């Protein structure tokens, strides 16, 4: 069945909003800045260990900046989503990529959430849960109006599907 009959998963149709890259970069910068700042302040205050502390602050900053430069654009290329009448299909990750598919008939709840940073960028996250404890699908970095539309459409579609979704 391999060889000429090889099959693979095609990427979902839609990319996330381009602003998501900026949002991810900001997140990376914040998570880098906090430990780097703590180390730097300690380095200034604690004389005997100044060299070590400042060096590790510099190392954290360098790693964080490299991470910020590299990963968000990779995430943007990988993170994609698609909703058909039958199923929701989401792809996430970078080094470890994960494609999740949930049939419409098994979806239990549809939530949208907007953190403070997401609001700043005009973005929202849609979470779709199924009866499985490990079955939640998340679409991050959608334009918030588009996310609201999507949530509404999903709610409509799932409402039409029969059964108790287990």
């Amino acid at each position, binding site marked *: 069945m*391999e060889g000429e*009959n090889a099959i*693979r*998963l095609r990427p*979902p149709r839609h990319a996330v909003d381009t602003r998501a890259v900026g949002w991810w970069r900001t997140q990376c910068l914040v998570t880098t800045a906090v430990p780097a700042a703590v180390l730097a302040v300690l380095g200034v205050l604690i004389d005997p260990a100044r060299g070590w502390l400042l060096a590790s602050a510099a190392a954290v900053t360098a790693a964080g900046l490299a991470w910020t430069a590299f990963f968000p654009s990779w995430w943007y290329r990988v993170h994609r989503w698609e909703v058909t009448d039958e199923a929701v299909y989401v792809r996430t990750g970078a080094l470890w990529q994960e494609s*999740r598919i949930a*049939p419409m008939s098994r979806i239990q709840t549809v939530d949208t959430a907007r953190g403070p940073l997401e609001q700043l960028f005009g973005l929202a996250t849609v979470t779709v849960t199924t009866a499985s*404890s*490990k079955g939640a699908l998340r679409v991050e970095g959608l334009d918030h109006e588009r996310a609201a539309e999507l949530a509404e459409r999903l709610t409509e579609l799932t409402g039409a599907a029969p059964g108790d979704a287990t």
Partner: protein
Amino acid sequence: MSPAGDPDGEEWRRLDRRTLLVTAAVLAGVAGGAGVPVAAGLAGDRPLAQAVGWVLAGALLLILAGTAGDWVRWRRTRYRIGPDRVDLRTGLLLLKSRSLARDRIRSVDLTANPLQRVLGLTKVRIGTGESTGGGESTLELELVTRAEGERLRRTLLARAAVPDAGHDGVLAVLDPRWIRYAPVSFVAPALGGAAAGAVMQVSEWFGAQAEVLDWIGDRFRDVSLPWMIVDLVLLATLAGAVGALGLWVEMWWNHRLEREPGGTLRVRRGLFTSRSVTLEERRLRGVELVEPLGVRLFGAARLDAVATGLTEDDEDKHTDLKALLPAVPRAVADRVAAEVLRETTAPTSAPLAAHPPAARTRRLRWALAAVLGPAVLLAALGALLTPVLLYVAAGWTVVLTPLALLLARDAYRSLGHALAGGHLVGRSGTVRRSTVALRRTGIIGWTVEQSYFQRRAGLLTLTATTAAGEGAYSVLDVGETAGLALADEAVPGLLRPFLEQPETPRARSTEG
């Protein structure tokens, strides 16, 4: 017994009054257990009579207060089996009432520990089988008489019972010979360690730890230190094996797995603590055949149910509730699996498709990394600090490399997948090999994972999500095309719209 025809159906009932007796007895036991070391400690710097007096007074206070509290709980707790709903009201200041719709009730489980059994009482747990609701979806009655528990079980699970002569009846009864698998389980070494720990702990309470150690030293005066260690390990293993036998008898005595009219499975077991777990077949999504290494070497396997609504309990109850069979000969496990799943041949014994050699390469690499990583670290430290560590690193590598490679090969051989009748079968693991047969209609989504290395090797991990059991079951490191074809065939239509044929078929074959 139809719900509406039950004359007692609609009145509020109380728990059994003897619940208080059980509470008092349990508290007395707790007070006794805590009191002995406390009294021993107090007796160090004051007269013995005084210490015992203090402890007795404290114990009495504890028992009285606890029993009084339980009396209030007993007074304020009422339950009612109505025509449509089951209600429970309880609480002193914060009144709690919980109501379950009768047509959603999926399980009625009875548990009685020895004390409760002597008094003819039992704990009843009524569940709706929803795993999302946390504690909200179960209702516990603590305690009612055994007859009342049995009545509740029959009333609440009485459906339109259509006797099914082909499938009803006893599926498995305990064969006492199965006890031979108890000492090879992982319980044995754990119990051995616990026994050694307990000896040390108790002797410390009485300040006699040093004497115990001296005594052990005296016993082994004539042998060298390595032999003493070997002897002690053997002793602990023996104690562990005896403990495992005892535990097995307590857990599995009187075990009986049967199918009752109306489509429920019932597991009854236990020597001192009797347990009765009822499982509606509607909740069943498959079975998991578990072969821990020791048990597998003796050709045996354990059988667990994969069902919805078993996850809401705390960890130990969880394993308790899903167990269908103890470790039994493999053929018996397969036969029971087939009968439980209503298949003519057991999905768990279906011939499995092997996974690509790339999966073996990955496992061999992991094994080498797990052995050589620490070895390199030890060697580096040895070069810097002391040559002794160099010898340790060499010994470590020589001893563990073959073992790790053996395990890796076995892990690869364990990998496999199949579609058997209405079930998706996936197998993996070496120390704990697990074969999961999941009902295809119970699959509520797919997750396809690929790490960077898996993408390069043309592998993927296919995970079926389900409402039951652990929520997701994986087929590890399957070939890309084989895995996607498997998912497409298992749940027709779901994956198809998202599949494509690459424009230029890759030259590298993903399956050998």
